[in-house]
């Protein structure tokens, strides 16, 4: 046997075939040395030639240059653990409720990736019919205000303290107050949260000494009684105080019906509405509910159309929508009602002399009285006055009209505005007398909103411990010992009881951004009911849940277990509305005494009526740039407070009426007692002579309090304008200073012109429509009912050929039609001018949805507001019987000059205007780089990154709806203080579906194309066609009056198709031939207008005659709306 064993891996190796040997050698290939590599001759073939080298060099340099120009990379960090209910890119909607002390609404909050970014009304649940007002829609931005307090603070400390420290201090203070025998007062705005009232009850029980074991408080408010019968404590008190007081109504109802309540008003049941100085569509009590109800009967095609009379001194938003508007002075409100009283009941209100009312007002009041009498039980008289006597007369009239059995419901009172004005004055006295040991303030800002705010502030120094539970270190909070910041409404749980019959929930949509705490929880902590465990404390949530189980769940039969009950209520934000029907009540008011009081109201030479703007309201959100930049529905002024005065008065005083970029307004000094307000004057048509209007809610941050950067004046270069002592300058003046006792009608001692001038920033500087009748169209209900379409909405025709045949505009085309008709989708919109009340919610919703930049006062003044959607407001001139209709005789006499001047008491039309998405868009043809093009779904699209900014499209747009990025709004220093997109926190409100536009490009309404795409996707996923409701725009979605309908025009069943084919539908500037995808609907005013009737009826007859002569049917009048369907 051989000793050498041979191991082989395979037969190949054994046999040592040549192939194997060759392979085996290559098993470990040897690397070529550099020399060997370069020595390879083949390499020369692949060499880089000189030209190639230059090419590469050039390319590299270019590439490096281009790369260097790139915007900085911003990383998007994905979720490590994805929350179950969040899908990136898909929005979550949460139902909630909004209440800020003056507005209430059921809302839906849109969140993206955990951030609330949009608020709209909840149409399916609640009592507000899906209405919101601009303040509610914009409140989402206030969540991201970087000046909101980051944590609790004690006075003097620059840094936020810890909750535990503050809590210990506060409890110590409260105990000290009790032991010293001093009073503890909780001062809040009206609390409509039952659970909070419960918490307050517990708080008071903890520190209170019951005055007498048996004594029970007189039932202050009906609703509270249902929850608890509050014992009376001698050393602790909860005072409710609202900036805007409706104490007068409560007192009057106490006198008239024995109940200190605000009844519920159902505007939908009223065929005749008479309002005396009451802005019920804008700010009055529960206006979100009233708007929905009011609009139910404003449809001319409905069973009836209500008739709305408005008597007022300012031109209010409500007044601008009235059918008949009379002008009276604020001091005459009582007289006007007394006049009505006499006309209706036959008995005069004793001691009131109504003869001083103007003839015009008397005639209109008489007319109103006739109508009211004819509609007993289906009419409504309301007054905005906070005077008990005036409200007693109102009650008496409504009682005489049997309205208490239907329209006004005393059984279902509105729980808001429980203000007790007298108690506040007592409190200030007690504070001054050092009787108050601890004052806790919540959601209230008396130092600002009290007429004697300074006195309050001074008295505060005499309080041993003052605590403010406020989101900001505002006028009041900044002088308190402790600030215990509350959550923003979108961060906290809450429950509300806005009306006796209705309970609703608010749920958080984001984890608290700052170290804040629900004020209810604060009270719970201080009274030992709970312990705070950081931002995720659920104490108050648990409390609410327990209360709802105890009171709500137990009283219903719908749900078997509490969990499903609670889930359903959180999901919907509320339960079903109970019904508490109105029943007739005996009226026990003393009209004679009221008359005496009314007679004592004397006017002055000048009278002031204070009002709330749709955007700023009582000033709670003064730091919200969306609201500051929102044009006022009537004046179209942004960012400012001013005096409204009738142009005639201004001319008499030598004040400048001009409004414009470089047209300064005069500044006047308004003196009331010792107080003086110095404000610019705005010429307001429809303002009663010798009266002025001043908006509340301005003049905030007098001492540079941190209430939001946008609450202050910015100068031409975007810096905060310097006030006295280098502080930031407040905007406007505080009207609350002159509203003594919550009365908003005041006599001015004097109004005098100062040497100063000031330029107001206005988005619309021309106020009439110059008699142009293809922009707005208006008719009366009678004409609409009796006449064919040709009378009030005649289509434009052109004469063509030798025979001068009349042909509709749609037959004339310069361009090939876009194939959007009957093919695929064609997105379209109708806007009912009859429904639009001009509130501006759509504008805010659009701004929120589409990341529309805020540009600040100076830019607005220069006519560069960026709103994609604006609301044009037109006044009628004396030449026009109504807006947009010329009386030719008068026109020939007065010419265009006369058309420019609005009437003294003009008719008003609000017209939302946005991109009309023309099928023959004049913008599209002129763009040299095709940056604006037409989609095959009828949309006029704007490709921002193709735009080179020649602005030709904007010049050529007949509707002037295109907006140019004049600067780099997201980073240019001029906009640092106003544009939320420049703030790390504020940027969180941006909608990630919509790009933020860069400098130098054009932008405009896109019909919310991102929402259209999303809607189409929903339908696609469900494998069905797009139907009505899938696709909507932000403006249509939020519109409280449903004035805007959006949909697919090619879907013959769609609402928008039907709406666009109604007799009232027309297209703005039809004769220009742009073929828009937006239709407007003629406004129908329920009034008698003989002059208009003469014109419109004659016009129709003229047309009819002409056509019968020619012996053919008028295609324009019979076919308008269909004529485009040529394919």
């Amino acid at each position, binding site marked *: 046997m051989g000793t050498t064993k041979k191991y082989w891996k395979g037969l190949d190796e054994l046999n040592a075939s040549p192939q194997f040997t060759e392979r085996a050698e290559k098993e470990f290939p040897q690397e070529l040395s550099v020399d060997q590599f370069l020595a390879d001759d083949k390499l020369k073939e692949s060499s880089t030639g000189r030209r190639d080298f230059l090419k590469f060099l050039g390319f590299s340099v270019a590439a490096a240059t281009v790369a260097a120009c790139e915007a900085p990379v911003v990383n998007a960090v994905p979720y490590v653990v994805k929350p179950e209910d969040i899908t990136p890119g898909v929005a979550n909607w949460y139902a909630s409720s909004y209440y800020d002390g003056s507005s209430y609404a059921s809302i839906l909050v849109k969140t993206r990736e955990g951030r609330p970014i949009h608020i709209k009304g909840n149409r399916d649940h609640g009592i507000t019919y899906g209405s919101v007002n601009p303040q509610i829609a914009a409140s989402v931005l206030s969540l991201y205000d970087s000046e909101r307090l980051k944590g609790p603070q004690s006075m003097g400390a620059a840094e936020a303290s810890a909750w535990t420290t503050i809590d210990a201090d506060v409890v110590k203070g409260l105990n000290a107050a009790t032991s010293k025998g001093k009073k503890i007062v909780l001062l809040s705005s009206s609390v409509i949260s039952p659970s909070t009232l419960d918490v307050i009850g517990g708080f008071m029980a903890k520190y209170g000494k019951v005055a007498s074991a048996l004594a029970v408080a007189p039932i202050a408010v009906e609703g509270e009684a249902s929850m608890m019968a509050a014992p009376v404590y001698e050393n602790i008190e909860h005072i409710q105080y609202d900036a805007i007081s409706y104490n007068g109504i409560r007192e009057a109802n106490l006198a008239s019906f024995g109940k200190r309540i605000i009844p519920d008003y159902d505007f939908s049941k009223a065929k005749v509405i008479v309002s005396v100085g009451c802005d019920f569509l804008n700010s009055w009590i529960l206006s979100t509910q009233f708007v929905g109800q009011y609009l139910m009967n404003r449809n001319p095609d409905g069973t009836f159309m209500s008739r709305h009379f408005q008597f007022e001194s300012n031109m209010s938003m409500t007044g601008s929508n009235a059918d008949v508007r009379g002008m009276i002075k604020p001091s005459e409100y009582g007289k006007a009602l007394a006049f009505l009283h006499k006309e209706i009941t036959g008995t005069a209100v004793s001691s009131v002399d109504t003869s001083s009312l103007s003839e015009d007002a008397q005639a209109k009041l008489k007319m109103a009285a006739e109508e009211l009498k004819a509609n007993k039980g289906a009419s409504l008289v309301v007054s905005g006055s906070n005077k008990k006597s005036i409200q007693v007369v109102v009650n008496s009239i409504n009682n005489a009209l049997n309205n208490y059995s239907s329209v006004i419901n005393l059984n279902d009172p509105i729980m808001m505005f429980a203000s007790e004005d007298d108690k506040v004055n007592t409190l200030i006295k007690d504070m001054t007398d050092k009787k108050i040991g601890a004052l806790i303030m919540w959601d209230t800002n008396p130092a600002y909103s009290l007429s004697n705010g300074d006195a309050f502030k001074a008295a505060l120094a005499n309080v041993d411990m003052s605590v403010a539970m406020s989101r900001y270190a505002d006028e009041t909070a900044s002088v308190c010992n402790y600030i215990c910041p509350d959550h923003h409404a979108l961060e906290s749980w809450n429950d509300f009881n806005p009306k006796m019959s209705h309970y609703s929930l608010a749920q958080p949509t984001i984890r608290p951004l700052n170290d804040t705490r629900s004020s209810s929880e604060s009270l719970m902590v201080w009274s030992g009911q709970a312990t705070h465990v950081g931002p995720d404390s659920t104490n108050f949530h648990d409390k609410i849940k327990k209360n709802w189980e105890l009171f709500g769940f137990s009283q219903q039969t719908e749900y078997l277990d509490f969990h499903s009950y609670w889930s359903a209520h959180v999901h919907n934000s509320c339960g079903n509305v109970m019904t508490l029907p109105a029943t007739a009540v005996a009226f026990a008011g003393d009209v004679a005494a009221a008359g005496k009081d009314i007679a004592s109201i004397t006017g002055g030479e000048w009278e002031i009526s204070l009002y709330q703007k749709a955007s700023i309201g009582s000033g709670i959100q003064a730091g919200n740039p969306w609201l500051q930049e929102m044009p006022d529905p009537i004046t179209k002024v942004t960012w400012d407070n001013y005096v409204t005065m009738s142009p005639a008065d201004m001319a008499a005083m030598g004040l400048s009426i001009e409004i414009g970029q470089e047209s300064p307004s005069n500044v006047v000094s308004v003196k009331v007692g010792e107080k003086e307000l110095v404000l610019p004057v705005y010429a307001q048509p429809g303002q009663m002579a010798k009266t002025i209007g001043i908006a509340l809610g301005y003049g905030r941050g007098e001492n540079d309090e941190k209430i939001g950067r946008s609450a202050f004046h910015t100068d031409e270069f975007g810096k905060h304008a310097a006030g006295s002592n280098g502080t930031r300058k407040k905007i406007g003046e505080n009207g609350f200073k002159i509203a003594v006792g919550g009365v908003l009608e005041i006599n001015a001692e004097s109004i005098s012109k100062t040497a100063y001038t000031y330029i107001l920033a206005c988005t*619309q*500087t*021309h106020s009439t429509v110059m008699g142009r009748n293809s922009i707005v169209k208006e008719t009366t209900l009678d004409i609409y009912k009796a006449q064919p379409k040709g009378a009030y909405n005649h289509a434009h025709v052109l004469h063509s050929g030798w025979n001068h045949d009349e042909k509709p505009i749609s037959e004339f085309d310069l361009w090939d039609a876009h194939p959007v008709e009957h093919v695929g989708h064609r997105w379209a919109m109708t806007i009912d001018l009859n429904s639009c009340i001009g509130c501006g919610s759509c504008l805010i919703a659009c701004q929120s949805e589409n990341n529309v930049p805020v540009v600040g006062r100076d830019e607005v003044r220069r006519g560069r507001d960026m709103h994609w959607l604006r609301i044009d407001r037109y006044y009628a001139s004396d030449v026009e019987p109504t807006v947009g209709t010329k009386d030719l005789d008068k026109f020939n006499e007065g010419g265009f000059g006369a058309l420019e001047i609005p009437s003294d008491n003009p008719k008003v039309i609000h017209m939302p205007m946005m991109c009309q998405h023309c099928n023959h868009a004049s913008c599209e043809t002129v*763009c040299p780089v095709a940056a604006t093009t037409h989609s095959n779904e009828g949309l006029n699209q704007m490709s921002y990154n193709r735009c080179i900014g020649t602005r030709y499209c904007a010049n050529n747009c007949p509707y002037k709806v295109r907006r140019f990025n004049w600067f780099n709004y997201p980073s240019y220093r001029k906009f640092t203080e106003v544009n939320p997109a420049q703030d790390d926190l504020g940027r969180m409100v941006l909608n990630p579906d919509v790009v933020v536009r860069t400098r130098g490009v054009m932008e405009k309404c896109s019909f919310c194309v991102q929402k259209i795409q999303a809607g189409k996707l929903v339908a696609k996923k469900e494998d069905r066609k797009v139907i009505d409701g899938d696709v909507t725009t932000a403006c249509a979605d939020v519109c409280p009056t449903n004035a805007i309908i959006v949909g697919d025009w090619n879907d013959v069943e769609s609402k928008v198709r039907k709406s666009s084919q109604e007799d009232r539908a027309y297209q703005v500037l039809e004769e220009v031939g742009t073929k828009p995808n937006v239709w407007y609907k003629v406004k129908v005013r329920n009034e008698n207008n003989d002059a208009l009737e003469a014109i419109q009826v004659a016009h129709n007859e003229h047309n009819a005659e002409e056509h019968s002569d020619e012996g053919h049917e008028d295609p324009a009048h019979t076919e308008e709306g269909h004529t485009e369907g040529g394919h």
Partner: protein
Amino acid sequence: MHKEAAIREPLILGHKSYHDITEDVCRSIEGKAPKAWYIMFGVALLVGLYGVGCIMYLLGTGIGTWGLNKTVEWAWDITNFVWWVGIGHAGTLISAVLLLFRQRWRMAINRSAEAMTIFAVFMAGMFPLIHMGRLWVGYWVMPIPNQFGSLWVNFNSPLLWDVFAISTYLSVSLVFWYIGLIPDFATIRDRAKSPVAKKVYSILSFGWSGRAKHWNRFEIVSLVLAGLATPLVFSVHSIVSFDFATSVIPGWHTTIFPPYFVAGAVFSGFAMVQTLLLILRKGMKLEAYIHVKHVEYMNIVIMVTGSIVGVAYLTELFMSWYSGVEYESYAFINRATGPYWWAYAAMMTCNVVSPQLMWFKKLRRSLLFTFFISIVVNIGMWFERFVIIVTSIHRDYLPSTWSMFYPTWVDIGIFIGTLGLFFMFYLLFARYFPVLAISELKTIVKISGESYKNDTAPGHHSDKH
């Protein structure tokens, strides 16, 4: 040789020989510049630099530094653009159209008029560039292959036509002007003493040797270019007018615009030529070549084109009434009586009334008066463009958007700056370029020269250059 009637006013005054002409034109190039030149150049340079600074600020910050707003999105930018383009019309008209019509009086003025054209078109061309929101992507207006997919320019847009019209006009004018300069550069080259000047002018003269073949080609190219340039004279401003005429804005949407714009352009162009030449002839002592007769001829052109413009204004007014379109009629009523009435009044006075004074022979032969009117006309023509652009869009269809336009310091700075740059270029031209077409003038000295007409010329055969 063509003989001209003795009663015709001579085009060259005095006893000018060929050599005299060369001397007269080259004097300023070869000698030292007068103090006045340095002062004027310094001022123009400073003003021009200020304008450049304003442009830098504009480009760095945004179009918002101008006074434009959401309603008036074009104002001084496009006004200045059209104004400068209009001024840039005279040069090519003089050199091309008058060449084809064999107008000999053009020979004294065509060189400087063409230079003015080039510089004016430079200034004009700048405005469409800087008025863009995003200048850095401005090249997208060129139909060039790109990586954006099949993205092409929009051939429907008049702005695109503008791009082609202006760039073509500029290149043809530039070439035409330069070709004309070559023989004269050669003359200067031959006379130059300093080596630097010699080198520069020899490069500029492209090796011109004055051979018959060169002259022959020169003549042919001039004629061909004149033929090319002539339609351009009419097309450029017609196309510029399309920016407005094809729009839907009342006051812009007017079919009369193309001829009316061309007439206006010639009108303003000649006025600018007058302004410049009246200074030039004095400053450079060229009174013998550019004298009252030339001025009178130009004044007649101004009078005729001014009248055409006036008729156009009246036609517009008539049509606005006759059309029955309420927006149209309002646009014109607003022009005349609205907030910008003063601009309309200025335009009417300067453009319609003032050129009519040229009917008086005494006035049109008065140099001082001509100088005055030439400035008035250019002010008027600036206002014409301002009136057309701003007063049409500041109040168009929807009264809710009506607004006013107020210029900012940047608007003004850039306009003034272009004036500075323009004069700076022109002064450089006057200093270093032959301001009169030497070779061309020599062709008429024996036909239209005063001394040849009345036979008082000394050495008839002095051909020395």
